[in-house]
């Protein structure tokens, strides 16, 4: 990294510039390990491809996802340029699957970002300040962990009304408890570290400790838990949309597509098959990515 080599002497006047030290940052080292994991790299590729499809959807397909063409109802795959066929309103299924990526991926990622922020703040407050704050937050973590996930999501969506924003919010509000519990535990161990005491000795405020010392050390855990939380958010979104509580029609969503395909499952199996495949592939990709990240970010495997 530095080109000029200075001769350094220690306090006893001895040359210490030759002391061998390897140079690498934590995240660089993690990436090096991650890169060797073929399954995780494949999952990452699949996810990036899906994100690309979601963002560049209008460029990938020439069809309008919402425009109904009753003359072309329920076409088989491959007919008239519809590679996955069409649905009961004559809309291109491939196009709707791709636009469905937008909903599913954004719900998965944004809801988990919300969960990360709430979870970290709650967890760190409970773990760092302890006492009363810990009692209260731990109680709420218990409460939120004991509510049936889907039922509560349904109730929230009824109350808030369907829509993307409300989906982000309700799923985010539902999944913070797990993050908070893990962060609380992590902070309880980190708090014992001497560098936290060193910061106190130097007059550092709680804010400095929470954001400068604890946060960077919690980020690997936040990344792992919330990457592994994305699949369950995607599944819940699909379930809600299936039940008609997710995004309002005609916006394409994998869950609502499967719901629409129900009636035709005997005659047009492919109609339910394609959105189902998208759900399975995306969920598996995020799960395997999370596993890969967990291994790569484990400091024990570094070196």
């Amino acid at each position, binding site marked *: 990294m530095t080109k000029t080599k200075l001769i350094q002497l220690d306090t*006893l006047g*001895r040359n*210490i510039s030759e*002391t*061998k030290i390897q140079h690498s940052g934590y995240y660089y080292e993690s990436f090096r390990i991650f890169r060797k994991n073929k399954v995780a790299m494949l999952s990452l590729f699949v996810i990036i491809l899906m994100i690309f499809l979601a963002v560049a959807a209008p460029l990938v397909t020439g069809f309008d996802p919402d425009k109904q063409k009753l003359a072309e109802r329920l076409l088989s795959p491959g007919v008239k340029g519809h590679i996955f066929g069409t649905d009961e309103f004559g809309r291109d299924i491939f196009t709707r699957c791709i636009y469905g990526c937008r909903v599913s991926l954004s719900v998965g990622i944004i809801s988990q970002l919300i969960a990360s922020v709430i979870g970290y703040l709650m967890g760190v407050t409970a773990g760092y300040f302890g006492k009363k704050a810990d009692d209260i937050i731990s109680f709420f973590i218990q409460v939120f962990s004991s509510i049936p996930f889907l039922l509560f999501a349904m109730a929230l969506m009824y109350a808030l009304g369907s829509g993307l924003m409300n989906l982000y919010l309700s799923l985010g509000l539902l999944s913070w408890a797990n993050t908070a519990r893990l962060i609380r535990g992590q902070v309880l161990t980190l708090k014992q570290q001497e560098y936290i005491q060193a910061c106190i000795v130097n007059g550092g405020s709680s804010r400095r400790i929470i954001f400068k010392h604890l946060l960077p050390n919690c980020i690997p855990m936040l990344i792992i838990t919330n990457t592994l939380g994305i699949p369950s958010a995607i599944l819940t979104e699909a379930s809600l949309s299936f039940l008609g509580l997710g995004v309002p029609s005609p916006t394409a969503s994998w869950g609502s597509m499967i719901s629409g395909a129900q009636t035709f499952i005997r005659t047009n199996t492919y109609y339910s098959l394609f959105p189902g495949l998208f759900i399975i592939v995306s969920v598996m990709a995020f799960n395997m990515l999370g596993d890969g990240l967990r291994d790569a970010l484990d400091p024990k495997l570094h070196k």
Partner: protein
Amino acid sequence: MSEKSELLVIKDLDVRLFTERGTLPVLDHINLSLKPGEILGIVGESGCGKSMLASAIMGLIDAPLKITGGEIVFEGVNLVNASKKTLQNLRGSAISMIFQEPMTSLNPIMTCGQQIVEAILAHEKVSRKEAVARAMDMIKSVGIPMPEKVFRSVPSQLSGGMRQRIMIAMALSLRPKLLICDEPTTALDVTVQAQILYLIRKLKKELNTAVVFISHDMGVISQMSDRVAVMYAGQVVELSDKKDIFTTPAHPYAIGLQAAIPKMDGEAESLEAIPGSVPMLYDLPAGCLFSTRCERCSMKCKTEKPELVDINEDNPGHLVRCFIPAI
């Protein structure tokens, strides 16, 4: 010194670590021997391979580590290529081991007494009643006050010193011929350390057990050993009687190690530190492994590897791995 009288002979033992950076020498050509009833002290700083040596003798070397050469002969049996069954029979009965942290080597949910009883039953065909009686005798002999109470306690209810006593009771309950102590007092306070060291000396005398005593503390080694091996970067650099090594050390590292210890008598303005640090295993010097830190280093030391040789013909048994030993 015929080999027949030796209890344990380690000959040219090599242990290698297999990594992506290549094959690294964790232990390199170790040659040691031990007579019945003798205490061999092994001293060195962290990473010198002294604990690895203990694992090798116990047959606890596991991937990515591997014994790639040499032999460990215990009573005529080569442990390196012995079957799993033979090793299992030897471990615990003829050879046993005491670790640095007794808490991790004791089962936290079994009472101390039970654990000793199980150890006896696993190796000897005795009735449970007899085993219980022997376990109780053992607990009494390691100087535990209120042995009946301790017999029924789980390890977490005891102090560090008491736990180490239980470890010793367990290790010696089968009257092993060889006891390996890997830093047994490092986690203990100095007054408790004195008690445990006394206990090991006393029991060794009573049972005539041979002991391999591993420590980083020169003071402890000097109190415990008959012979001492100094290790550095996976090699034995000096091996001799206790007297020679502490009064006339010959290897520059052995000298430096003693000079670095704060003395309890006399006045010293600054301690003599050994310059530099221990070389990384993947970056070992071509010649003598200590050449990077040695003040007497010559050209020969940088290119050729010294062998462990006798330095004094009149007084054989003082082996040093150095081209220019201090005599």
